[in-house]
């Protein structure tokens, strides 16, 4: 479903991704963990070409692109296959919560407005925000904005969803709600990649976990394996910190 | 109270020898051949008339260049004493200004493109369009002449616009004073020709704000008469226009 091969990305002198390789099967959930600044967001952003990688190949849902020879249409295709939940939400500032959800449906899926609004309201309800449908982003709390951005991505019903810390400003009640929603979706064949700092969350939803550090994938495995019995020293110390916290 | 005496404020309280009286006068500097610049010097027919008259009266002329409305503003606020720029004497203007005696007369006439063989007299202009310049008073005269409003008139901000549209045949005629037209045509080798004789003549004089500079105005009137008599103005006229415009024909 998703295959990333020898992906590299630098910002000027700073090599953020040095050689990234991994694979996700259809319907699987991959979690990415790692220290702040290790390039997790950058990796997600490379997958839909919000950052242009320097080298490597990316395959999503049958479409393989060599990042050094990529055509505009390929990028467009890749993007249509995925949806993204941003670390800082990036809600459309001039649109209400509902319009934020319907906008992409109307524009990229050519859905009639009425239908889009029906779907939009469903997803807003799912994230507990039916009553804020007509509010603009500035008047929403942090958690509310994040939920709208999750609803926006879910409503697109894409083959892959990329989540960048989707639960970071959600309270525990909501985390479990959103988790329900994500689980429910993952039973359809939506594939998901989730960058997260919440180990419990990662443990619960993922089929696979990747630990990133210093531009490489240090370790990869089933959550029970990676959290329970990490192999690499770097992973061990990270997981240890995590367990100490509890 | 012309500005002349202000010069005295710089003296050391001694005497009044060599004190030059000054006339502050305005000209647009863009009205060939009445006032224009050659190299760095302001010259032109009206300019020279005033300078000679002033010199004879013991005055020095201080020039201010501005556009026509600016000159009127300066005149009205006493920043200048008079204007030497083909200011025509009209009844309306006499209500606001006192004029010295006229130093020239402008025959107002019309030119058309030299390739135009349909317009040979003023009569032929009926139903046609004629260009003219704002503030020149020529347009006003043409309107007065064309009592039934049979000639279309287009007014322009500046002379170059009115002239160029005649050259480009966008209008059928261009109204201005004959001397100015003559000078323009000769200088620019323009493809324009006269349509008949001037239909009206206008006196040109130096305007003064009512009730000010009475002495100077009278002195200038007398001096202008003298210059008429001794042929100086005629000479200047021929130099600048190629014909004598110093008197009504």
């Amino acid at each position: 479903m998703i295959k990333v091969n020898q992906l590299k990305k630098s910002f000027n002198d700073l090599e953020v991704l040095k050689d990234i390789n991994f694979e996700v099967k259809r319907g699987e959930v991959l979690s990415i963990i790692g220290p702040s600044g290790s390039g997790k967001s950058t990796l997600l952003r490379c997958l839909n070409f919000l950052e242009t990688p320097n080298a490597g190949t990316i395959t999503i849902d049958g479409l393989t692109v060599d990042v050094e020879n990529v055509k505009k249409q390929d990028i467009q295709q890749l993007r249509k296959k995925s949806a993204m939940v941003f670390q800082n939400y990036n809600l459309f500032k001039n649109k209400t919560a509902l319009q934020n959800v319907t906008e992409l449906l109307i524009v990229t899926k050519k859905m009639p407005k009425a239908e889009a609004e029906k779907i939009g309201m469903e997803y807003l309800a799912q994230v507990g925000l039916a009553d804020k449908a007509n509010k603009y982003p500035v008047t929403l709390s942090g958690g509310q904005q994040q939920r709208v951005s999750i609803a926006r991505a879910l409503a697109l019903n894409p083959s892959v969803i990329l989540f960048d810390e989707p639960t970071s400003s959600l309270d525990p009640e909501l985390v479990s709600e959103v988790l329900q929603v994500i689980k429910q979706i993952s039973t359809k064949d939506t594939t998901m990649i989730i960058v997260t700092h919440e180990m419990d969350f990662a443990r619960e939803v993922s089929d696979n976990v990747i630990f990133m550090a210093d531009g490489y994938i240090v370790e990869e495995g089933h959550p029970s394996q990676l959290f329970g019995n990490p192999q690499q020293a770097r992973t061990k110390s990270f997981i240890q910190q995590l367990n100490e916290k509890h | 109270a012309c500005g002349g005496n202000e010069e005295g404020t710089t003296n050391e309280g001694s005497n009044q020898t060599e004190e030059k009286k000054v006339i502050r006068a305005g000209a647009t500097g863009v009205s060939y051949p009445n006032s224009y610049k050659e190299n760095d010097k302001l010259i032109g027919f009206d300019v020279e008339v005033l300078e000679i008259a002033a010199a004879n009266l013991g005055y020095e002329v201080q020039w201010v260049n501005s556009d026509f409305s600016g000159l009127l503003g300066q005149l009205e606020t006493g920043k200048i004493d008079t204007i030497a720029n083909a200011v025509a004497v009209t009844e309306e203007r006499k209500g606001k200004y006192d004029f010295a005696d006229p130093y020239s007369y402008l025959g107002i006439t019309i030119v058309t493109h030299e390739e135009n063989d349909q317009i040979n007299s003023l009569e032929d202009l009926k139903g046609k369009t004629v260009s003219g310049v704002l503030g020149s008073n020529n347009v006003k005269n043409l309107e007065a002449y064309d009592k039934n409003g049979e000639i279309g008139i287009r007014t322009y901000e500046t002379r170059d616009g009115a002239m160029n549209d005649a050259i480009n045949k966008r209008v059928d005629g261009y109204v201005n004073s004959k001397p100015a037209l003559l000078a323009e045509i000769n200088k620019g080798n323009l493809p324009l020709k006269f349509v008949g004789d001037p239909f009206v003549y206008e006196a040109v004089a130096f305007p003064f704000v009512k009730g000010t500079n009475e002495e100077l105005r009278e002195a200038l009137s007398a001096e202008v008469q003298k210059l008429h008599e001794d042929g100086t103005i005629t000479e200047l006229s021929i130099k600048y226009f190629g014909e004598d415009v110093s008197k009504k024909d």
Partner: protein
Amino acid sequence: MNFDIGYMFSLIPEIMEYIPITLFMAILAMILTIIIGLLLTFMRSSKLKVLNYIATVYISFFRAIPMLVQLFLIYYGLPQLFPVFTKMDAVTAAVIGFGFKQAAFASEIFRAAFLSVDKGQMEACLAGGMTKVQAYQRVIIPQAFRNALPATGNTFISLIKETSLAFTLGVVELFAEAKMQASNTLRFFEAYLAVALVYWAIVVIYSFLQSKLERLLEKPYRT
């Protein structure tokens, strides 16, 4: 000074007859300004070096050349090079001249306005599968518009007054009419004040409309 206030007020109705031609030229020129201005803005941010270069030269040229000179060259100069332009009437020439020039200024305004839109907005559009064109249409331009409106309003108001330069081409609009009236009577103070009052009325009405529009655009940002 003998200021004739009665004369001033008597001029106002005469001047007002020329409001339509003034607005006609200003509005057409404004439309041209916005279209070409946007085009230039996109050209300047284009990856194609040629487009970028053309836009840069266009902008520097049309910002530099005095309007009067530009009108003169278009209306009197062009026909001498290409006789077909003799057919162009003065109002057309003026509208084209105003529009071409103000577009250069507008493109600078638009550039700043686009920069003021948070980068994340474009990213959210692209990641959601929109094309760049769709993103501009649906999200970026509406947000940039809020930033561009005050300076664009400046441009429109300048245009309204700038139309008076069309007098150089023999087009009489409200300022020219006032000058013509004044040159008969030499009462420039009265005529100028009358003109200023008429412009003021137009600007007050326009500003009122703009502030309504601004309130609408502000809605999503009000807390």
